């Protein structure tokens, strides 16, 4: 009987694997094929010369540099704002964790478009910030808060901060609270216990959050299109412009392939520091 159950279990497990087939097939056709098609078009429409745009005009390389700089600054800003937030969520007790968690999830799940549009209401020359400051007599000319890198960075930080907080919080929850307690009972000051015990242990969350924010910000299109400097587009905007504006699928595809390779390189580098499965949200 026992042996029979054992054999049945093995058979059953083999069968379970087949359930993954529809999803894998679906993604191969509707995700794999599009990426492959983009790569093929970049080489064949009309020829690999599409990649020569990098040599012909500095616009494209500049856009990659701007994109990486904005992405790094956004990641830094998210970390700076996200760490204290996640820390209080972790240490502040159940009720506070619930409230702060809701405040994070609400923007996390609300439309990027609405949030970007709302920021333009705040930041434009006749927006809330400038009108308030002008009326208060603090400034006599509107501050340039929009249509520049500042506007893009504010908007992107706002969109990506929830990703950072959720990653940091998940990382902090894995830390054994007894460790900081032990340090303090052995005479460490709270600050020392934080600096020597908690902070190093929360590095996994820091890496995970930074990786996901950096990777997502590399592909931003909407926020820079609405809040950014039209004269200094990010690479996402140039790709869209090539494909929908110029109808130049070849060059658009080539720019896309380079961005894809750059993104995957960042992800690959990130896997040295952090387990990718936890970055994607799988729990242990």
């Amino acid at each position, binding site marked *: 009987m026992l042996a029979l159950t054992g054999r049945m279990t093995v058979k059953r497990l083999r*069968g379970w694997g087949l359930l*993954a087939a529809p999803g894998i097939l679906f993604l191969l056709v509707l995700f794999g094929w599009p990426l492959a098609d983009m790569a093929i078009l970049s080489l064949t429409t009309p020829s690999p010369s599409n990649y020569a745009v990098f040599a012909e005009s500095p616009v494209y390389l500049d856009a990659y540099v701007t994109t990486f700089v904005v992405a790094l600054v956004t990641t830094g800003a998210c970390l700076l704002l996200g760490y*204290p937030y996640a820390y209080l969520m972790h240490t502040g007790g159940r009720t506070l964790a619930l409230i702060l968690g809701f405040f*994070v999830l609400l923007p996390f799940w609300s439309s990027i478009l*609405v949030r970007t549009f709302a920021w333009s209401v705040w930041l434009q020359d006749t927006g809330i910030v400038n009108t308030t400051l002008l009326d208060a007599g603090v400034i006599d000319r509107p501050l340039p808060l929009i249509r520049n890198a500042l506007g893009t960075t504010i908007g992107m930080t706002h969109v990506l901060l929830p990703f950072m907080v959720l990653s940091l919080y998940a990382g902090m929850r894995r830390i054994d609270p007894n460790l900081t307690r032990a340090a303090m009972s052995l005479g460490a000051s709270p600050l020392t216990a934080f600096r020597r015990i908690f902070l190093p242990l929360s590095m996994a969350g820091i890496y995970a959050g930074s990786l996901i924010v950096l990777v997502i910000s590399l*592909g931003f299109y909407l926020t820079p299109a609405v809040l950014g400097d039209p004269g200094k587009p990010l690479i996402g905007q140039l790709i869209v412009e090539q494909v929908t504006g110029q109808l130049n699928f070849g060059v658009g595809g080539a720019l896309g392939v380079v*961005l894809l390779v750059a993104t995957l390189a960042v992800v690959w580098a990130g896997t040295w520091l952090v387990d990718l499965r936890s970055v994607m949200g799988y729990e242990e």
Partner: protein
Amino acid sequence: MNRFPWKGGLHSVVALIAIFLLLPTLVVIPLSFTEGTLLRWPPRGFSLRWYEILLTDQALRDATLKSLEVGFFTAVAATAIGTSTALGLTRGRFRGRQLTSSLVLSPIVVPTVITAIGTYFVFVRLGIVGTTAGLVLAHTVLALPLVIVSVTNSLRSFDRNLELAAASLGAGPLTTFFRVTLPLIAPGVAASALFAFITSWDEIVVALFITDPVVRTLPVVIFNQVRSGVDPTVAAAATLLILVTVIALGVALLARRRTMT
């Protein structure tokens, strides 16, 4: 509780960050009730005229219905395929299972712009740009990883012995699944269906490429209006987007909480 001397400072800093997270978005709500014709702060008076336009304007109404339709079918497709995939990847034993379970999440890390143009190229070949089915397929790609992660986590969080007990008492694999496994993961599955719906409901970048002037989703219509001089109807439409998301999120969180307790 007050072990840290700087705890009071921490509370104030976090309060400011919470305001940064919440407040900017909420500004569209008062703006949607303005009497003025300009999208200007502060709003003047109180009127529902922009909601009236939202409900009577043919293009906006069509787009809202289209968004609901696409979101619904995306939720159904992504939940069915995603739950099946999560089961296969969690319970199955085959070579490359670990790698596959990471690869199925790759739509999360591939920049959406790239997914969008690739999908557009393929849809042009297939002639399905500007179709509801095309939108559902493309949005299902984006929602699928979220469903897989969420269902995988529910599958891992419950006691496998319950299934083994059912099996050892003579239940077949199918009976075990429908009588034991599915009821246990049902809240997680329901939550991921709602997350899939929200993903589609809010999606804009892919939709910009594969919609046409006839078949458009609400975010696409709003985006076009934002770019070409806006009136407060946009704020009303944006408020509608927020409202639907808040409701879906609330229901999803309730479903999730029931799994945890």
